[in-house]
């Protein structure tokens, strides 16, 4: 749910299932990173937000990119500013002191933060395996070197580390060995009702039931590239509610307006449209 605007309202907007809560607590006590897998849109990223919120810790998000090097996540040596300062000499920084030109990256910030923080490493599967293994070394040791000034940065407080992965393939063995693992399954209708309750307090019972029924039916469609997930359902309900002409009864009849909110790929959209049209005839 990384695109939900409700970013920092966290725990009040996140339905935590007790099993997952247990796993989070154990990972924190064992001081091990927690690796979360699951379909996109099952709330992996939201969990980190919820933890940070309920524990009152700052959240630091590292969005992994495919071209990323580990150093970028640790620190950055700002050579250009230094060059500029040495040319003009009008800055407050001391040009001969390299340390003043070192900026902390996300992991570096989590290590040097004065309070314990939650470090979310999002979509680790995008980077190559070397990055993953090297990063785990750093997280294991809780320290890294800044080569330019030969200084070791040690973690003041061990951050709570949450790692998410969308990949279907497994990560490397040494990586997995150092993490705890949890797979977030797609919520069942009962759980989904709770989630919707949290997002839309006082939602019309009729609308909720028929929307959930229609949603799970559409999810059963075969050969769909990207199945709609919680995020899509929430946006869909938002769309349905904003349409003054919409009546929940229509859903029961097999009509499904705003299909484009649920199905984002053109092939999927067509398939879903055909499916709903066919159902309406009977």
């Amino acid at each position, binding site marked *: 749910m990384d695109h939900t605007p409700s970013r920092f309202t966290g725990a009040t907007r996140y339905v935590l299932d007790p*099993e997952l809560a*247990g*796993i989070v*607590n*154990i*990972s924190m*006590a*064992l001081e*091990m990173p*927690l*690796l979360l*897998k699951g379909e996109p849109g099952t709330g992996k990223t939201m969990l980190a937000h919820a933890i940070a919120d309920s524990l009152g810790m700052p959240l630091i998000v590292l969005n992994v990119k495919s*071209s990323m090097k580990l150093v970028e996540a640790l620190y950055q040596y700002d*050579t*250009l500013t230094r*060059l*500029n300062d040495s*040319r003009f000499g009008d800055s407050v920084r001391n040009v001969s002191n390299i340390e003043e030109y070192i900026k902390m990256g996300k992991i570096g910030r989590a290590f040097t933060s004065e309070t314990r923080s939650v470090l979310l490493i999002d979509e680790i599967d995008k980077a190559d*395996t070397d990055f993953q293994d090297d990063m785990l070394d750093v997280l294991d040791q809780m320290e890294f070197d800044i080569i330019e000034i030969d200084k070791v940065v040690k973690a003041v407080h061990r951050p709570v580390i949450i790692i998410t992965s969308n*990949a*279907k*393939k*497994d990560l*490397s*063995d040494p990586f*997995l*060995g150092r*993490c*705890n*693992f*949890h*797979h977030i399954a797609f919520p069942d209708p009962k759980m989904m009702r709770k989630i919707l309750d949290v997002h839309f307090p006082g939602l019309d019972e009729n609308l909720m039931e028929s929307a959930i029924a229609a949603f799970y039916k559409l999810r059963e469609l075969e050969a769909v590239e990207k199945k709609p997930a919680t995020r899509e359902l929430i946006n869909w309900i938002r769309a349905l509610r904003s349409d003054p002409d919409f009546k929940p009864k229509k859903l029961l009849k097999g009509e499904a307006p705003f299909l484009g909110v649920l199905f984002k790929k053109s092939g999927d959209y067509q398939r879903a449209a055909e499916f709903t049209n066919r159902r309406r005839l009977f």
Partner: protein
Amino acid sequence: MFIDFFYTLKNAGVPVSPTAFLTLHKALGKGLVHSLDDFYVTARSVLVKSERYFDLFDQVFAHHFEGAELPDAEGVEVDEMARALLEEWLKNPELLAKALDVDESELSDLTPEELIDYFKERLKEQTEAHHGGNKWIGAGGTSPVGHSGYHPGGMRVGGVSRNKSAVKVAMDRRYKDYSLEGPLTPSMMNEALKRLRNMVPAGPKDRVNLDETLYQTMKNAGEIEIIFERSLKDRLKVILAIDNGGWSMDPYIPMVQTLFNYARAQFKEIKTFFFHNTVYDYIYEDPARYKKPRKVSDMARLDSETRLIMVGDASMAPYELMTADGSIHIEERSGRSSLEQLRFLSETFPHSVWLNPVPERMWRYTQTVSMIRRIFPMFELSIDGLEGAVARLMEKS
């Protein structure tokens, strides 16, 4: 504590490591676990690292702590066979009905679930093994219908082919998608294929070239001159063509799966094609070799710098390779033999290799292997072979 549990898990096939087991004990020692539920959650998140094994873990857990029965291997086997029978049934009801000695119409009223149950019953009924018989379903018999049979003019129902030149496979298995996850980890292939890269500058000029900046700044008498450049990106184009037809490739599927998984994750520009035994007029973009044919002759339009990797056992009847109408598919009759098509491919793409999952020592026993070796440099699909193939692909022509 729980050492039995650990070994039951290991024996059931869940990959558990001793380190993880020690971590579990650490968790127990910290007093984090107060109930069996807590233990279940802790043990699973610490010991099991992939959702693929969650189900197995649940079964072992239930067995160990609640005394539930472990599913016995035999039951699983019957299940598997029943499912295989169902698949056959869906493809060719007549044939199977005949084999089971029942009326086809009788079975066609049943739902798939009922069919599975029916097949299970039939399989249990067959108490003695019928391997080698000539009437009932069994393995290795000479009945025209059966598993791994060798019946010169008969039809093959499935199984692993023993004599690789089984001519005209009557029923192509139309769906064998290698992209399904295999249990092997690609990390070893990772090592071997790492050198298969072609770094070229690409994209916007958004990276500062520090050395050049300093040089130009000095040249400019200290007036700062910032030099930008394009960052290096891997722009290697790869075509992976996989033999996924027929039964002769079946034993090697896990190996090819690993390669396929790796290739998909690693290369930015990769095209995957499928063919059956060897290449005739068309190769296919879909694993079922049905929907998206591409004319082989059209390949000439692609960049000749593309690396072509063929994967297949290169084993077939010689005439399938050499005669102009060797294809088992009627629609492929262009008058060019497969050998010519292969030669055409290797000329179009000077950087090409053939990976063969069959061990190298077996190659000289199959005639077609040595014929194809004369066209493509052939390497064994093993770590060593891959290294050789990569070196060959990166050679300057």
